[in-house]
């Protein structure tokens, strides 16, 4: 694994905008003045680690349900049975993204799992693929995200006609991500319709979520976290409607940072995991993470009692977990984290985001990658 400085394409802005990546220039988010080069052996290692971690996560979900550990995860009691039902019914999961620390020399380490509402999808599936075809046409990229998404949609129940896609209003990044996913669903043969999260309606007589035409929402892809839904006015309506949600409710167990100490408890010493606990006792260097947190917010890195890095934010009320500190690999003052995509149950590719601080945030820059045979 190697970071390489290269010349950006002269017309990159135009090309990125042509595929819908409208925010590529925000804080220089898309950075193709560098790229990461992998070997096929390293890609194989990432693929194996991702699928292994996914299997461990499913084991952890079953453990949480069987042992009623929802309270430790800050999940309201009225949802416990619904979460178990969602898992036992094998409700369709579309995708997720593990964040891994990896430098090509030591084994990948799981930092966390964005299992519910992962973004950076268009740039991962499409933008970096077109970049690779132009810049390194004789090499390859670890990227089958698009094809796997299309195939995964086809596993929805046969009678499904339309999928509604919900994203927050006034958030362009979320809008772009959801509209890309709509395209994958269209290619899978479904009708699609977008709705803003704030416009979702509740028909109190028919006990159904409805769109702006008062049409029943049969299947809803929601780029909106379960932990927020569960605390909002419409949350309990989820328990009495027939709408199928993507991601399903059971994925809230995996997007929750409390999964980290539970995984360590179930698989102590596993090479892909970092020690993690519900208290900092016994750890001298750790990352303090809110149970519910997004994009690095409210994370503190602590060494010998001193905070060495932190990011502000609104999270932490539900409690924290403490994960042994594992500094991201340093590529010349650039700290890179690997986002490893899983679609359904299969590893589907990677993306890289890098920052000048040791916490990956929503200000981190996306850097494309390619790999060579080795």
């Amino acid at each position, binding site marked *: 694994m190697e970071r390489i400085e290269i010349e950006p394409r002269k017309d990159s802005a135009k090309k990125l905008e042509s595929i819908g990546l409208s925010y590529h220039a925000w804080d220089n988010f898309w950075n193709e003045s560098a790229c990461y080069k992998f070997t096929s052996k390293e890609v194989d290692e990432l693929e194996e680690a991702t699928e292994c971690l996914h299997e461990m996560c499913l084991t952890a979900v079953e453990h949480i349900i069987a042992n009623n550990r929802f309270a430790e995860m800050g999940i309201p009691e009225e949802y416990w049975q619904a979460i178990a039902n969602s898992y036992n019914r094998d409700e369709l999961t579309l995708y997720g993204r593990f964040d891994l620390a990896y430098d090509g020399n030591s084994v990948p380490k799981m930092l966390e799992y964005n299992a519910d*509402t992962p973004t950076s999808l268009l740039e991962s599936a499409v933008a970096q693929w077109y970049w690779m075809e132009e810049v390194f046409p004789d090499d390859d990229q670890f990227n089958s995200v698009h094809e796997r998404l299309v195939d995964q949609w086809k596993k929805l129940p046969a009678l499904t006609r339309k999928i509604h896609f919900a994203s927050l209003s006034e958030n362009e990044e979320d809008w772009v991500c959801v509209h890309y996913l709509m395209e994958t669903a269209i290619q899978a043969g479904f009708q699609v319709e977008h709705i803003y*999260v704030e416009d979702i309606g509740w028909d*109190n007589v028919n006990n159904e979520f409805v769109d702006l035409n008062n*049409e*029943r929402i049969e299947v809803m892809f929601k780029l909106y976290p379960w932990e927020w839904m569960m605390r909002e006015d419409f949350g309990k309506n989820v328990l009495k409607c027939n709408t199928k949600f993507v991601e399903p409710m059971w994925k809230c167990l995996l997007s929750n940072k409390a999964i980290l100490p539970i995984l360590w408890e179930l698989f102590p010493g596993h090479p892909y995991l970092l020690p993690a606990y519900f208290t900092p006792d016994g750890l001298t260097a750790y990352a303090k993470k809110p149970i519910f947190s997004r994009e690095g917010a409210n994370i503190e890195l602590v060494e010998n009692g001193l905070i060495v890095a932190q990011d502000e934010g609104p999270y932490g009320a539900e409690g924290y977990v403490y994960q042994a500190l594992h500094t991201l690999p340093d590529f010349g003052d650039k700290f890179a984290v690997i986002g490893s995509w899983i679609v359904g149950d299969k590893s589907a590719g990677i993306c890289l985001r890098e920052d000048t601080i040791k916490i990956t945030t929503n200000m981190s820059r996306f850097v494309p990658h390619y790999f060579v045979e080795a």
Partner: protein
Amino acid sequence: MVMLGTLLVGCSASDGAEHVTLDDAETIQVKQETYASMEDCLKDWNDAENCKQEEIGTIDGFTGQTYAAAPGSGGGHGGFVYVGPHYYFNHSTGVPMAIYGDGSVRAVNNSFVSRPGVVSAARATSVGSVSVARGGFGGTAHAMSAGG
């Protein structure tokens, strides 16, 4: 004859902390058919559970409207009319959804009122409304991305 009434349906948290605002609520049209005879009512609704006798002049608790003689009844049979359930059409399936007194809702798949162009000569329709609440999701975001 068409009677109008309104049913506002809110949504509240079980702890009673807040009510969803209905300022921008939309309405679903809720109807009820009135017939001159029980036979006419059963032609539309098939099941006696869906039809009942009401005294002319009685106020419908749902719409707040007063039951009047059905068309073609010559003033009503002995001062009674026969009414079907309150119902609305499911936009997705086109099937009428009957609303029962206990608040439950059930699709009436074999109802004749769902067939376009089939009109009972002795049917009158009253119309009310129920609300679709909006804005119950999205409050936590506070301008943050929901992604990660």
